[in-house]
């Protein structure tokens, strides 16, 4: 079922939920306007980690800077789309479906899964770490698995006693064994139930031998990326991993909260790639880090409100590191309702990853042809 020999290109998507403040992540530290717009929610010039004379990493993102300096991290500046939605829900929806003007039900990752595993033979082709599937992964005919907690993933996880759980699972398996003639809906349910059981079993056995000398931190994003690492190293045929890091909606108290988010995120990503390298499993992995929008240019004396153009990161051994695209202008006359105007369409970013990395035709997935960036060099 799963071919173990060829290491197929694998994509890890990390969604920063709430709208990451791009201006305080990649900081235009030598631009006086930055300090004018941000009397309170600013990062002091003498603490930033400069990339060049204009831009610098937030000091809390040092582990990301390390990846950047070794050439494995691309910063895609000014990512967004026309008439950016300031709603989290709608904004995330647009990023998920590539449809800014109408409400669609199928997501870009889901459509890619359908290309990668058209017959849905491996229920682990795409895995989300979190609860329920994000819209991005939903498409008719696409199989995807959602894992809340990898260590307890599966059915009857609330049944504490081991013997009782085994008994309950045996009974479940018997009840869900497909019986001919019960009706198409019943048969579909039976097949789904058996798939879930089998997927849980494969995962459990796959991760059983994992060990690592990388000590991940104890926070949600570190936990999620450690889970991604364990499943990737188990080599179960997963091509797309998806997870999210929540809390970026920093309307208030951004100065204490945003650094913590960046610290957790940066270290988790750095640990993740170190872990993969230690297991000789990094070269077929590329990570995309995105958020639904950037934040308002002018601060509100405590935090920042919903904005437009933001930024994304693409990280991995095969990534052409460095700055891509153009940082949006901070000039007042260039702002869009007080927000950074996007300089690059997010669908071009997806297209670059789909074509240059996953090897699938991006046009039907993102709904058109968009300018790609030279982000990847496949071996």
């Amino acid at each position, binding site marked *: 079922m799963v071919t173990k020999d060829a290491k197929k290109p694998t994509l890890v998507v990390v969604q920063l939920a709430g709208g990451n403040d791009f201006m305080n992540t990649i900081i235009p530290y030598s631009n006086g306007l930055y300090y004018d717009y941000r009397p309170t929610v600013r990062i002091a010039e003498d603490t930033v980690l400069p990339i060049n004379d204009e831009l610098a990493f937030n000091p809390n993102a040092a582990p990301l800077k390390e990846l950047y300096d070794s050439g494995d991290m691309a910063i895609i500046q000014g990512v967004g789309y026309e008439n950016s939605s300031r709603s989290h829900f709608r904004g995330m929806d647009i990023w998920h479906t590539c449809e800014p003007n109408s409400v669609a039900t199928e997501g870009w990752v889901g459509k890619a899964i359908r290309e990668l595993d058209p017959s849905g033979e491996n229920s682990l082709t795409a895995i989300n770490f979190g609860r329920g599937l994000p819209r991005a992964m939903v498409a008719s005919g696409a199989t995807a698995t959602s894992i809340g907690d990898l260590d307890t993933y599966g059915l009857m996880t609330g049944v504490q006693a081991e013997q009782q759980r085994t008994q309950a699972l045996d009974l479940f398996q018997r009840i869900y064994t497909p019986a001919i003639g019960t009706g198409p809906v019943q048969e579909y349910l039976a097949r*789904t139930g058996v798939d879930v059981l089998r997927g849980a079993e494969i995962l459990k056995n796959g991760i059983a031998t994992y060990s690592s000398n990388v000590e991940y931190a104890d926070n949600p994003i570190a936990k999620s990326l450690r889970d991604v690492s364990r499943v990737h190293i188990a080599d179960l045929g997963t091509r797309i991993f998806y997870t999210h890091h929540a809390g970026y909606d920093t309307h208030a108290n951004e100065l204490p909260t945003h650094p913590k988010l960046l610290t957790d995120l940066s270290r988790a990503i750095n640990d993740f790639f170190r872990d993969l390298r230690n297991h000789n499993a990094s070269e077929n992995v590329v990570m995309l880090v995105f958020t639904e929008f950037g934040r308002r240019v002018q601060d509100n004396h405590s935090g920042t409100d919903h904005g437009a153009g933001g930024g994304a990161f693409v990280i991995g051994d095969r990534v052409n590191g460095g700055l891509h695209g153009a940082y949006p202008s901070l000039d007042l006359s260039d702002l869009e309702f007080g927000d950074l105007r996007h300089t690059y369409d997010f669908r071009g970013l997806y297209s670059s990853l789909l074509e240059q990395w996953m090897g699938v035709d991006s046009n039907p997935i993102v709904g058109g042809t968009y300018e790609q960036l030279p982000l990847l060099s496949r071996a």
Partner: protein
Amino acid sequence: MSGTDRELVAHLMRRAGFGATQDEIDILELRDYEDIVEDLLNPEQFPEPEEDVARRYWIALNNPDGPNYPAYWIYRMVNTLRPTEEKMALFWHHLFPTSAGKSSDPPSSNVQIETFRRNALADFETILLDLAKDPAMIYFLDNSENHNGEPNENWGRELLELFSMGVGNYTESDIKNAARAFTGWTFTQPIPLDPYARYPSEFLYLENDHDDGEKSFLGETGPFNGEDIIAIIVKQPATAKFLSRHLYNFFVADEPQVPAWDNVPPLDPDAIDILVKAYIDSKGEISAMLRVLFNSEFFKNGRFKKIKSPTELVVGTVKIAGGMKFPEPGHTGMADAAAAMGQGLQLPPTVEGWHTGKEWIDGGTLTERVNFAVNQLANTSADSTKKIVDYLSAEGGTASPNQLVEACVAATGCTNVTDETRSALIESAASEGVLSFNTETATKSSAARIASMLQSIVSSIEYQFA
């Protein structure tokens, strides 16, 4: 006449409400079926759920224009004495899906749900008119951007396509004229209620933003306003048919998804004809349509022909377990559970609403459904287990594996278990022998076996059906 078959009562209560406990069925089975239907269709004779305690626990509810609070709605579904009123509010939410997620601060979706509840069984004209004046809907479908000379067609289009007639029964020109008729229908900006909250937005008609020119709509011509458009819509046979099919899909059996209705005939065309006649005879009274529906043979024969929606699964299971009788802080988890199963209340995915039936199920949602139900029934001191202990221990202090299975099947309402499933359950129970209630220790271990049996039944394929 005396009484009603227990399984028929259970079926009626699952569909017209969110299920009934064995104790409730004990009382209802003594009554005539038609009487039970009349009680369901006349909810005002029963008190509303008490809100004092709920408001004390969930203080966000005290904000009249507060954020959506689906856990409170679920709490009402569990405890209401007016189950059909709450079920119909859910039906209108399926039919008129308005997402509270369009912006960070939209007009209150709670106010809209309250309107759905008030209009649960009203006539369709009133229902559409109140919907057209509902600030959350006006905002959701951009009617606040629908101006004299600059019409925005979003509301006009969906009113015809998704809320009343269905595609293929009107022209693009009808949409344009409907949109023009609703120009000037907007809402007031919310007034702050210091220090925490806002007074809700209210419907506002701006006469000087209304296009009062001549409009042609579905063959009629005049200087129509929004009320006229709705009055014309509710007279259309297509409307009667579209609404009938929705009621059939929600209450009787799973139809294909709505976009297919234009070219896939109904599962039971005769049933739709009967409902259409009820609509026409009653001038669109929902209570009259439901009276015909609940008393029909096609309804009574429709047992277990629907996949439970996540909301039905959550509320039905909580009721079986005897949970959520009083508000508790952890109850927001109930709404999160339904959302993880694919139905975030007050956050429908699109204006088309949720795809129902088989489409509720995939590997992730099935896992959520099974694990949720199993966890709800884990507690051996829950009502669900205690009642079966009382029942099984009443005769001689022991019970056979067979009796255990039958009692648990009845308690979960899962009387559709197949012969194969039933034998699997009995064999599993038999492997541990007869249940004894003769000593405290024996009763305790029997209670654990009862809880396990209940868990196995609610994780079955059959339990996914309503």
